[in-house]
């Protein structure tokens, strides 16, 4: 899932300083699961903003709405009736959601309430970890199912670097060295020989470095 985290309330409040009525839009997908933008968080944020503004003598009117996914236009369309009289739309979706809202409601000021962090998963309740670098060219079959692109601080393809000690990365003792993990896993799988091959340089053109990406399924897409 996409893992996101809420921005400081003060930052959000500053962004809507001139608004009198705002629409807060939560998303029931990834950001709900990572406890950043579901109904609960949306209502808590709305309440906090109202309290702040009430205190400042400039009461804020809020409307809160949930959509199933902010990354599908049809769901965004369900908000059509709610945006008319609001000054600002606050999205509690990931970066994708904010843009979909901004595209649909072209003449409205849309602001992000979340910082979109990474593609990852749950460790346990309240903790998530990055797992995928969205590089567009998966090599996990060569690295024991552990991604060095995103889990090695240097994205080395032929690690570990000299900074790996006790299985930890040099940048922080709490960060496991991905290459150490790769080594251990390959060893347990009896595939250490694969690590002796020099992995070729990565084709970054399939990643974001190749420009904004688009996927078209030719077999289902009709122009």
């Amino acid at each position: 899932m996409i893992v996101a985290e809420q921005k400081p309330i003060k930052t959000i409040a500053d962004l809507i300083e001139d608004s009198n009525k705002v629409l807060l839009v939560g998303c029931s997908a990834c950001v709900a699961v990572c406890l950043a933008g579901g109904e609960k968080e949306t209502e808590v944020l709305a309440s906090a903003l109202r309290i702040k503004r009430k205190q400042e003598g400039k009461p804020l009117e809020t409307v809160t709405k949930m959509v199933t996914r902010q990354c599908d236009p049809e769901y965004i369309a369900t908000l059509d009736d709610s945006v008319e009289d609001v000054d600002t739309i606050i999205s509690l979706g990931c970066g994708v959601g904010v843009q979909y809202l901004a595209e649909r409601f072209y003449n409205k000021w849309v602001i992000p309430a979340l910082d979109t962090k990474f593609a990852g998963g749950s460790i346990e309740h309240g903790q998530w970890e990055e797992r995928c670098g969205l590089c567009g060219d998966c090599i996990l079959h060569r690295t024991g199912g552990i991604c060095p692109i995103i889990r090695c601080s240097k994205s080395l393809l032929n690690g570990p670097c000299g900074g790996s000690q006790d299985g930890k990365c040099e940048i922080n003792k709490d960060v496991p060295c991905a290459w150490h993990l790769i080594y251990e896993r390959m060893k347990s799988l009896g595939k250490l020989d694969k690590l002796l091959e020099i992995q070729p340089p990565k084709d970054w053109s399939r990643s974001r470095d190749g420009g904004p990406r688009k996927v078209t399924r030719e077999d289902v897409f009709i122009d």
Partner: protein
Amino acid sequence: MSANKVGAVLVVGGGIAGIQATLDLVESGYYVYLVEQSSTIGGNMSKLDKAFPTDNSSMSILAPKLVEFGSISSIQYFTNTQISEVAGEAGDFKVKLSQTPNTADTKVCTNYVTPVELPNAGQDISGDDNGKSGDFEVNVGAVILCPGGETFEADQIEYLGYNKYPNVVTSIEFERILRTSDKQSVIRPSDNKKVNKIAWIQCVGSRNIRDEKHYCSCVCCMYAIKEAVCAKQYSDDEVDTSIFYMDMRTYGKDFEKYYEEARDDHGVNFIRSRIYAIEETKDGSNNLLIRYGDDKGEIHHEEFDMVVLSVGFKPSDSAVQLGNNLGIKLNDFNFAETTPFTSVNTSKPGIYVAGIFGGPKDIPETVIEASAAAGASEELLSDVRGTMIQEKTYPPEKDVSGEEPRIGVFVCNCGNNIGGVVNVPKVVESAKALPYVVYSQEFLYTCSQDSQEIIKQKIEEHSLNRIIIASCSPRKLKYYFQETIREAGLNRYLFEMVNIRDQCSFVHMNEPEKATEKAKDLVKLSVNKAGNIESLNEAPVNINPKALVIGGGVSGMTNALNLAKQGYQAHIVEKSDRLGGNARRISTDFNNQDVQSYLNQLVDEVNSNTNIQVTTQASVSKVDGYVGNFVTTLSNNEKIEHGVITIAIGGHEYKPNEYLYNEHNAVLTQLELEEEITANNTRVKNAKNIVLIQCVGSREPDRRYCSRICCNKSVKMALQLQEMNPDANIYILYRDMRTYGFNEENYRKARKQGVIFIRYEVDNKPQVQTDGKDLKVTAVDHILGENITIDADIVGLAAAILPPEDGIKLNQIFNLSLSDEGFYRECPFRGSWGFSHKEMRPVDFASEGIFVAGLAQGPKSIDESIAQAKATASREATILNKNSAKSSGIIAVVQREKCAACYTCARLCPFNAPRIINYAAEIEPILCQGCGICAAECPNKAIILQNYSDVIFTNMVDELYREVH
């Protein structure tokens, strides 16, 4: 045994054991007469401040149990009552009871609950018959004796100075000091000054040869440690605590850790010693001077502010008299004797014993025995189950859904308890002005029988569909009033209760106006809530009356057999090729009873019982479903449908790495040595010197627990070995001799007969060496401080009892709680919303319908395993006897369309109630205990706790502050 059995049981004694046995029996379909000779229910436990080792408050465990008492209608209880005569036989006893007139204050109000005063008997709520005073007779099928015990009279040992010096107190008195303390200091009796230095003296009245009380009272070591830790925690200043002891007997589950933490983290001093005298100092300070000899025999003097005597337990005189009246056999110390391998059967069929009257023990063990005794009674009376219980019938429930709320508010004056401070008429007036309130009135006593009739009448007259009672604490009377409105055809959950007595009149006595304002507010809040609550259904779930018993050892078989004899099906799954488990390797128990013939008989009984099915060489590979409706798949692909699960997968003996085990063939574990003794092996028979080493692999940093039975076992084996060869020298090398309870008798006998006991320190363990042929054991004599070397022919190692080998694997299926060591962690002291009696559950898990028995839960003896297996059966019977079970009404429900299937609820639920099914969470009503943790945490607000939704709370808060807007 009588042919005309009676489906009722007489429970004697209203302590924790009596309460537990009663509740189990009632829930399983039997009628109970509970008889208590004092004027209150509660027993010894209500005198304690906290229970060890979890440090939970005793009252919070006991109070809900007592409360529940009042709400079950198949109990009659009699206080101030004693048994005068018993006639008849098992299945059909006629018991004469005599009751002395009730001396307690007969208040009209029924709801006085304070920490020390417990609810008075004498009310119509519970169907009590205290009016009966005088002699009368009851007819029962079985009798369970749990009269409890008394503490030893400390003034009988003169040199301890009890009753002579004010600051020498007993441990029970010290509990009271703790309970009433301000939690900032501990005060001593002589001058009410804070104490800074306290001593505990162990074994007061226990292990005392002079006094012929040479049994160990089992619990004193632990309670002394608990008190010492509490004394430190309850004091803002540093308090020095010292415990003077002979052997530290922290043999129970998690006790050793508690001991280590007290010593290492809390800084409690432990002094191995003998006490010579306690005297007051001469300076008039009322301080005390203890004269004691340490373990090297050196004499010391030390001054303390206060001394606590850890008094032991004994049967009360009245219990002894009771035993004699009933003609049951008592042992040398006047405790009730139990027949071999029954753990709760007295010498007289149909009469069972539980708790301290059967021998000293702690609270969880008492509760286990109580359930076991209930289980044994249920086995005896299974043909007549349910014959004495009448199902109460109610008028059909009115459907009020869609109706506008019509609220009735009844305000209690409580004599003058409320009305003396709170202006009740004003509260009634203000209630009338609130939205949806169509009726309000005051009562002098809302809880009186007349008032109930009026309430019912008003419900009818005004078509009321929500009822609020503003009176006292809902803890006891909520169920009573809910019963009233149900009788009037309303759903029980259309009810709210406000406590304007304990929260208003009693606490704001000098501010009547403000107290009235507050009462009005509280009523307003509850009216607001009442407008938003709905009828709730207690979802019925069918119960499959069959148990799956995992493990075919003594625990599993006992459990299955008890259930089978109660008429339920049991299916035993055993992974080896035959039944028997660890007991196959044991010759005799600690009382020298033949285990093998008992075991063979048990196996025969199991095999011939048509209600029991046995699958050997199989294990559990998958479990689906929930309480009442489990479906288990075995490794042989057999599918079993059942209602409950007993986990009795045993444990196993540690294979030592130490003391040349595996290197020399004369170094054996306890079980291996026992096998050689049984086989009458010549090398054992001819051995000149036999050394038994204790605590091998137990009480070590990576296994911080005592294996509990090894001391008893080594002592027993020493006596056996001596019998085989009277000339043999037998040495036992130990750290603390933990021959708890009546096992102390064997220890005493062994010492008297010349078994040599040598204590060693953990940092100076004995050495076992060999030249390849002979064995030499070297140890340091703790008195002389010198090395002793023994040429040993046989070395026996008391190897630790390890958790079940399959425990972790099995637990991946069950997802239950395991202790750090890997034993199954039972669920004591956990409760559920709504007073269902789950307050103390030493054989239950947090997951409903799953129970544990035997070694899988922790080290224990055969008798203890049997007790636990029966207790488990009794607890299971409370589920299996019902055709269907009902969930609580207050449960969490999922709005599927909002659910993101994020797993938050499933991860957080302590009861494993939510599961993700078809891409959304579902909460199994029967498992949900209504805590609402999932509802609060649900990121999409897809979960609502019925009648406790966020909207209800925000509306209430809105209402509370409305006037200020």
